[in-house]
């Protein structure tokens, strides 16, 4: 399990992930939930494109010791003010 924020950024860089906007999110993209301080607090996989009207994708993620959950990107117990999306370019 990766929980060191530095390791997360290392993976993003080493695996050639590029940042995309929320409205461009596609299934398979990674969503990173950043704290106010900029630390990665949570992460998940995008499983649906943003839906019309609110442009919110659905995310599949593991909530700590709790279950894996499928939820709208803004419907979880983590800081939601700074969510970034990344797509691997192989």
């Amino acid at each position, binding site marked *: 399990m990766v*929980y*060191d*924020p530095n390791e997360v950024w290392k993976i993003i860089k080493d695996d050639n992930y590029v940042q995309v906007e929320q409205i461009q999110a596609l299934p398979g993209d990674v969503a990173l939930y950043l*704290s106010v*301080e900029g*630390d*990665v*607090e*949570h*992460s998940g996989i995008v499983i649906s494109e943003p839906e019309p009207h609110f442009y919110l994708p659905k995310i599949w993620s*593991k*909530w*700590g*010791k*709790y279950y894996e959950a499928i939820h709208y990107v803004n419907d979880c*117990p*983590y800081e939601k003010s700074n969510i970034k999306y990344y797509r691997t370019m192989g």
Partner: protein
Amino acid sequence: MKMNNLLRDKDIDNLKEVVVFANTPSYLYKNFRRNPAVIGLAEKYRTEELIEFFERLVQSEKLNMETLTKTYALLFAISLKDYAESRRFLNGVDRYKNLEWIKEIQEIIIDNARATTIKHIDLNHKTSAVPMPRKVELRIIQDAR
């Protein structure tokens, strides 16, 4: 020293959620330290009392979710106290291997405590016709390990 009713049931439930949902040690650190019940513990008890409570709990029976939550609450309440009083305890807290992420939490607490600075600003200077710079003294708390 009695440690019953350290936290109200409602507070424990709120803090349990933090423990359950935590994906990282820094999430625990931030969410416990800003919780009013944890801040209340730090305000109500002296550092040595909090350390005593913590050690009694962490050395007790197998930690269930409630005692684990209380133990984290005490640890983070200690982290809110003066680092000079808690430094010795914090330097050795990683020996409690039954606490998940204890090594990482210890590092976060100590790193943040070390970064604390105290500024002494002398405002008692006398004014004169010639502008004089105010004496500003910056003292950095240094880790004496």
